[in-house]
Structures are given as C-alpha cells and as structure tokens.
C-alpha cells in the first residue's frame, strides 16, 4: 500500500505535457456565443460603450470562459502525459471509476479581445487513500495556470477528481415469498407485525382453529375473535430442506409443524439450533423476526420460555 502511495506522491509537481497555446485569441464572436448560451446579459461582455462606462477599454470576456480559450477538445489527447500515467496507475490498483469533485478558479484580470492564453497543467496533489460515500479512492488535484503572451498569470484553476474503486453492488437479499393475503387471513399477518401470535377462536363455541377460516367447523358460527398464544409449543414434525434453494433462505433450512400449548398447530422455522439436533417433541418458543417492511413472522427457538 505504501508503495502505491510513494508512486502516487512521485507525480506531485509533475507538469502534464507541454504548455498549450490557445488556437484562437480572445474574440467577440466567441464571447457573444457564450453569453447567448448561458443567457448572461451583462453589458460589459457585449457592448463597448457600457464596458467603457465601467472602466474597461472595451468589451471584456466573462472570467468563467477562462478554460474555454485553450481547450483542445477530444482530438488533442495523446494518452501519453503524466496525468495519463497517473490515472492508469490508479486503474491498475482497482480505482477504476472517476468523478469530478471540485473546480476552483481564480482570476487576476479580465481577458480582452486579442489576448492569447497559454495553459500549463501541473499535478498538484494526490491524496492518501480516502473512504468516501462512493467508495475508497484517491483525490487528484491538478493546477492549471493561464498566462498571456507577456507571461503574466491571468487566472488559475484547481480541478479535483476522485479516482475510486466502485463498491461491489450489494444485491438486496431477495424477499421471502409473499403470503397471499385474503379477508380470512389478513388479521393474522397484521398481528404478526405487532409481534402477536394469534389463534382464531370461535366467538360462540370458543373452539380454537388454525389455519383460520370464515366459519367455525364445529358450530358454524361466522363470529370469531382471537386469543394471544403464549408462543410456547413443541415440535410435532419437521423437515430439513436442502434442494431446491430459494434465495431468500439459508440452507439447510429447518421447517417444522409446531404444536402450540393451546393445542393448535402451525408451520414455522426452527432457528438457533443445528439442523441435525432438531427432534420431534423438542420444546420451542416463538420470537418474531421482521424480514422486511412487509413481512414479520414468528420463528421458533428451542427453549421453554
């Protein structure tokens, strides 16, 4: 790691390529296009008289055009500069993604038509490895200096990028299969979200029943309420699933028929125990697990309470 840091640090202070002289001098048509494009109506950029009235010798260029005068476009890239070497070095260490993070410009004077800008780019700083929201990476700051033909610095720009290792996309765990919710079973799943293990009870003959249904099979009443189960029960039967594997679950997966102490049975998972230690008759107790925003279910763990 420190080897990389040393190699990166060696780039600091290196000049990227030869100085680049602008292909065109600062000129009124390009100023007009710029102002039109960004809808800047400041008269000192467009009107000689107004510029003079503001103490200029004539029309001046918007300072933010600084970089535009000497930009080469795609055709000007050689791939052979120190910056290219630096980026390739970072790529080779897994920092393959890039994002621009800062751009600070400083202006010494207004540029006027006729000025011809020459740009020099220096790698100013390469940071240590930083943890960011995007991932781990290094910040690279370049300093661009813009000079006129007299050699005077007319402006500078510090441009910072982050070269980072893209974080492996963490696929959200697939959700457990959704229960089909009907008017007959919705109460049970709603209660489960509140960590209540309900058993449907006939409001007339008081018989408990599970899975729930609209009518009491004993007295045929359509009226029902619920009782809050203690959560204590015993394993009546169980299986250990190996194949096929549904992505929402960990395997081997223990699924059991639990006989609750109230007398009804239900199917659930047995957790907190190795699959080969599960036995019929083993006492278990319910706890609730919220698998996602929609689904909370009871799970059963060996124990008495």
């Amino acid at each position, binding site marked *: 790691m420190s080897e990389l840091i040393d190699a990166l640090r060696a780039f600091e202070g290196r000049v990227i390529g030869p100085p680049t002289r602008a292909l065109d001098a600062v000129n009124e048509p390009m100023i007009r296009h710029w102002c039109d494009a960004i809808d800047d109506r400041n008269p000192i950029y467009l009107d000689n008289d107004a510029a003079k009235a503001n103490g200029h010798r004539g029309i001046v260029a918007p300072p933010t055009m600084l970089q535009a005068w000497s930009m080469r476009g795609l055709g000007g890239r050689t791939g052979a500069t120190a910056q290219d070497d630096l980026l390739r070095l970072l790529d080779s260490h897994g920092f393959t993604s890039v994002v621009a993070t800062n751009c600070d410009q400083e202006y010494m004077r207004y540029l006027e038509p006729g000025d011809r800008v020459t740009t020099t780019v220096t790698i100013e700083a390469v940071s240590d490895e930083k943890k960011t929201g995007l991932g781990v990476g290094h910040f690279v700051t370049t300093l661009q200096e813009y000079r006129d033909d007299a050699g005077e610095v007319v402006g500078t720009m510090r441009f910072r990028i982050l070269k980072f290792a893209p974080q492996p996309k963490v696929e959200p765990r697939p959700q457990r299969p959704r*229960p*089909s919710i009907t008017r007959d*079973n919705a109460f049970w799943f709603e209660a489960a979200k509140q960590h209540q293990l309900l058993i449907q009870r006939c409001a007339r003959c008081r018989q408990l029943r599970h899975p729930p249904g609209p009518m009491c099979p004993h007295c045929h009443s359509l009226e029902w309420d619920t009782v809050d189960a203690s959560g204590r029960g015993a394993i009546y039967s169980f*299986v*250990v699933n190996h*194949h096929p594997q*549904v992505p929402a679950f960990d395997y081997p997966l223990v*699924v059991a*028929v639990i006989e609750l102490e109230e007398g009804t049975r239900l*199917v659930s998972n047995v957790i907190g125990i190795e699959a080969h230690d599960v036995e019929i008759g083993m006492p278990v107790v319910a706890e609730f697990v919220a698998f996602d925003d929609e689904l909370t279910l009871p799970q059963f763990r060996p124990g008495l309470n």
Partner: protein
Amino acid sequence: MSDASDIGGRTAIVGIGATEFSKDSGRSELRLAVEATKAALDDAGIAPSEVDGMVTFTMDNNPEIEVARNLGMNDLKLFSRVHYGGGAGGGTILQAAMAVASGVCDVVVCYRAFNERSGHRFGIGVQDRPPAPNTENAHYAWYSPYGLVTPAQWVAMFARRYMHTYGATSEDFGRVAVADRFHASTNPAAWFFQQPITLEEHQASRWIVEPLHLLDCCQESDGAQALIITSRDRVKDSPNGGAIIEAAAQGASKGQEMMTSYYRDDMAGLPEMGLVARQLWATSSLTPADIQTAVIYDHFTPFVLCQLEEFGFCGRGEAKDFIKDEGIELGGRLPINTNGGQLGEAYIHGMNGIAEGVRQVRGNSVNQVPNVQYVLVTAGTGVPTSGLILGRDN
C-alpha cells in the same frame, strides 16, 4: 338413491396409448395429448368420431375441445375435469365410468399430457406463485414464507412423523425405490430402463429434504397418456381386450388440505386414501387377498407405505415389515409398480400407472405377474385422491 356400486363392473378400459416418456419431448403439450389419444383409440379399435366424452385434470393445459378438434371428433356430451394434481388420476376414470354407466356417453377419453420436465417443473415448488388474494393461493401463505414450497418438502413432513410414530427408517422407504427401479430396468418404455439401483445407492443419494433422499423422489417427465373407457359389453369387440373397471372412487377427508393436512390428530396416515379403499372394497366386494398386483402412487416413497396400510395389505405401521418380508417386487406377495412406477418409468401424474394396470389385466406387461385377476391402482397422495380396481373379463 344410488351408490358407487352402481358403476362397479359395468364399464371397461379398452384402449391405452402413450407417447414416449422423456425429459424433453420437443413437441407441444397439445401434440402429446393428441398423439396419445390417437394411439389409445387405435389400441381400442375405436374411431375418434365415436368419442363423445373427454375427461382430464384441471392442471392439464390442453382443453378437451382442442384435443377433439385436432382429432376430428364429433359431438362431445361430457367434458369434465378433476382437481388436485395427481389425485385426479382415478377420478378421471370415475367420471368416465359414471358417464358411460349412466348412459350419458358411449366412449370417453381420459388423458393427461405435459412437458413437466422441459417446461414448467413441479419440483421447483410454488415460491413464485403470485400472491393474488384467493383461497387456493392463501393456502400457501402458511408455508411459502417459511420456505416450505415443494411437493417433496410437504411430503417429507408426513414422512418424518410416520418414521417417529412407527419406527420406519429411510431404508424402509428405499426398498420402494429399489423395487420400482428393478421393474423399470426391464421396461424399455421406462426412462430408467436397464438402470436398477441398490439400497446402498439409495442411502448414498443426496438429501433433497430430510428425511427424503434424491432416490425417494419421482422423476420429472415429458409425455402423455390416454385411456379409452366404454361399456363392458364392448370388451369382446376390442382388438386388444379390456380391463373391467370393478370399482372407482375418490376421497377427500375431514381436515383435508392440498399436500399439507398437518392439523389432523394423526399425521402418520392418509385418511382420504382410506376412504378410497373402503369404497373400492365395498363396490367390488373384494379384499386385499384378491389383488395380485398393484400400482401404488409413488411420487415420493413414504406414502407407498401409508397406502399399503390404508388398503389393509398390512396393519398400521407394518408396511415396512410387509415390504421386507412379503415382498413388493416380482415374485413377492404384492408386486407393485411393475412398469417401474413414477420413480422408474415416468411421472405422468399417475395415468401411466393406470395403463400398466390395464396391461397386467390383459396379460402383456413386460413384468407380467402370473394369473392376474384384479389390479389395484391408486392416485396422488397427500391430496384429495382416487383409486381403481381393474379386473379381467371372465
């Protein structure tokens, strides 16, 4: 007031026809259906134009009218479907037998056709079942969110309780697989032709869902089977003979669920199959001693043991001893699944087992049991189910 005995012995299966059994048919399910139906009609010496009734499974994707249209059939006076997966097999024959015995129909085709291996595989389960709010989907709400999603898993829950209750072992289940594969090994139509297995291989096969090994589980298959049902008096005109439908019955019992009847007092039996058994014995006036061979639905081996008990071939919990001591292979007391069953021949939702029952009655099974008078054929277990007794036309 009529009862099931009204149909006993009055109708017959006079034609059987199937496609090859494969893992990838390369053809549409409809084509499989019409191929099998045409083959069955040819076997029966009956023209498609004579068919006036058709019965299949609600799970089948080939509408009766599409099969009829492709075969150039004429007027259909009965079209009926039976629900609950593999439990429907004998139920389709019951529907056909009732239609013929009552005079509604003269010739009924029962068929099942699917690409169950190359197309939608049942074995992957219901985890993708859309949670549309209806009662059949809501049934799975008590199982799927816990990862209990496949037929093997649903059955394994019973198997574990059965083992606990009666002391049966995985090897006891394995003997069913060994018998099936032994019979398949001599059946050229079987997927596992010439591939018998040993009990050691059964024990060494990987877990699918404990306590079920891979070799406890039936195949997934592409294929189709059709059967032709008509009145008993036409058997004498049938070029290949027929099998009398001595009895046919369906059964769904108290507390019945689709594969998950976990809430009854006892989880170590199949009361719906007991109900089928009582009806079959009552209708036919036969007893287990009268049965020379049987096709016992074998999507998963443990329920074969339960069925032997529900039909009274042995007492409760004694199937493991019956299998070991009396024998379920050729030469044993009750050779079962002489076609290789669904573990060995193919999984055509049990309809291929009915065809094997017909062959045993006709006397032309590749694993023919001597002196067959009556054959028992059962349908899917763990679900509302059905069964048949087929007999010789003496």
